[in-house]
């Protein structure tokens, strides 16, 4: 069974200049689907289409067999939760105010979240390792903590699919690992399906080696070049063709952790 399916999807802000064209793939329940590719290849635009923000010029998106275009925002939020690439902080809400917004679709009429929904938000905060942060002002958090708060908000939505746009873009090594551990937990323990765009190709190897069903789609110039397991797609040859770089792959067994990795060496242009 397929959870999320894209059929021949095309989109361009200007209909005569498509950002991506004829994209088709199917995401299976309980897997991490990584979208990789150079800057400007259309990753974020594709994610916006999956989120229903860029209605496609051609093609359809189905979530669990339902056409995405037919879903109201309230219904949409029950299927797909989203963690943005960057977030502009405008007002210093408390962390709990932010996380409980994940229950927006479940609030009655024009009302606000009730105490059981606040409890759910507190539980999500605890699950991402931020117990005790609920009364802190979210404007005063570090970049890593903010990212975890946004993941907790998406988790509070209780959706089957979580879409993350470059979840570790501004994070240090440790917070990158924390986010990867949470993603592993989301898939293995919570049974979520993840779609994520990333520039950090080693994250696909991390997930694969952690025993998470992982697939990678390599995008270039608005098309999908390759799709498959991390080891199949993230190869020296593919990176040379798409990123125009020389790279090398290797394997480590440090501290008993079996892990594949890739290192960029040289720009060939």
């Amino acid at each position, binding site marked *: 069974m397929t959870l999320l399916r894209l059929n021949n999807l095309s989109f361009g802000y200007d209909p005569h200049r498509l950002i991506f064209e004829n994209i088709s793939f199917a995401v299976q329940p309980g897997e991490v689907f990584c979208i990789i590719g150079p800057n400007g290849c259309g990753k974020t635009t594709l994610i*916006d289409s999956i*989120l*229903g*923000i860029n209605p496609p010029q051609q093609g359809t998106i189905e979530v669990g067999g339902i056409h995405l275009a037919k879903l*109201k*925002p*309230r219904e*949409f*939020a*029950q299927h*797909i*939760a*989203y963690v*943005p690439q960057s*977030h*502009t902080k*405008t*007002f*210093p*809400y*408390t962390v709990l*105010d932010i996380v409980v*917004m*994940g229950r*927006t*679709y479940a*609030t009655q009429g*024009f*009302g*606000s*979240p009730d105490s059981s929904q606040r409890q759910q938000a507190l539980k999500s905060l605890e699950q991402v390792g931020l117990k005790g942060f609920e*009364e802190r*002002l979210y404007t005063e958090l570090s970049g890593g903590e903010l990212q975890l708060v946004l993941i907790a908000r998406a988790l509070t*939505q209780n959706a089957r699919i979580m879409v993350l746009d470059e979840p570790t873009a501004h994070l240090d090594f440790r917070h990158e690992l924390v986010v990867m551990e949470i993603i592993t937990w989301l898939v293995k323990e919570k049974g979520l399906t993840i779609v994520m765009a990333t520039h950090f190709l080693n994250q696909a190897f991390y997930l694969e080696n952690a025993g998470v069903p992982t697939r990678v789609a390599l995008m270039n110039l608005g098309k999908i070049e390759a799709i498959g397991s991390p080891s199949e797609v993230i190869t020296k040859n593919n990176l040379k063709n798409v990123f125009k770089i020389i790279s090398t792959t290797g394997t480590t067994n440090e501290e008993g952790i079996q892990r594949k990795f890739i290192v960029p060496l040289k720009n060939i242009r």
Partner: protein
Amino acid sequence: MSPQKKTIVTIILMMLPVLFFFGTICIGRYYVSLTDIFLTLWQGLTGNSSGISTETTTVILQIRFPRAFQGAMVGAALGASGAAFQSLFRNPLVSSGILGVSAGAGFGAALAIVLFNTVFLTPLFAFIFGILAVILSYFAGKIDNTSTTITLVLGGTIIQSIFSALISLLKYLADTATQLPAITFWLMGSLASTKTADVFLALIPMVLGMAGILTMRYRLNVLSMGDREARTLGINVRANKATIIGLATLATAGAVCISGIVGWIGLIIPHVGRMLVGNDNKWLVPASMSLGACFVIFCDTLCRSITGGEIPLGIVTALIGGPFFIYLLKKTKGRSW
């Protein structure tokens, strides 16, 4: 903020407008005591004479009561729509006039003064042109069937400056002996004209607008996350935005009908609210209404009692509001936002 502290602040914010309301009725050149007020109200409710002079009941019921009540409503409406617009536009520097409602209303009022030479149609024209200006801003900022926050603000700025120019044109054309002073005073804002009963009609859009904003106030939190996040959290962004703009415009346009253009309230009152109850609009919107009501009553009391005549309200709100805002800024070290 701890729940206990929040409860205490909430109770204070609910009591404060009532205190200010009765306080301002007592203050003025004609002496009125609190007992007089209660006896007058008792007399009005039961119909039994309570031995209060007709002069006192006239001052209370015909002059100070309507003025205090409408002042409170103006303050509450401007406070609520200021808070709504700041969240909606994700900008703490936005006030209730951001989409041109004040400039449009100013033009409408000036037009009525120049065309008809009477104050009777002024509130109606102010209301109509205030709403018209917001509709124009909305369409000016609409590109490809959608209006992003930034193009809306841009549209508002453009419409505002067009109406400001038109106000200047009317001032230039106006009769300098009678019409020009009338326009100038109207633009400075005042509650002096609240004796006339027809102004009570303006309460209808204000109450509608405030009730709507109160109902939808939690959505403001979600909308302040930005269009993309608000949508994925489950909100129809375009419909909610348009509704809230409509409600805030009704509230502001109604307020402007009564008081003319009074600056500062929609800008600073939500900030004072944030310092007291935080940023959650569930608490912030009612707090802004309460604080706005208190602030207008307070400033208007000064307007009518400091000198023998009337000082325009807009001057006092800016002179009191500005320094008070600086004080709060220093005291909280800008941490609340």
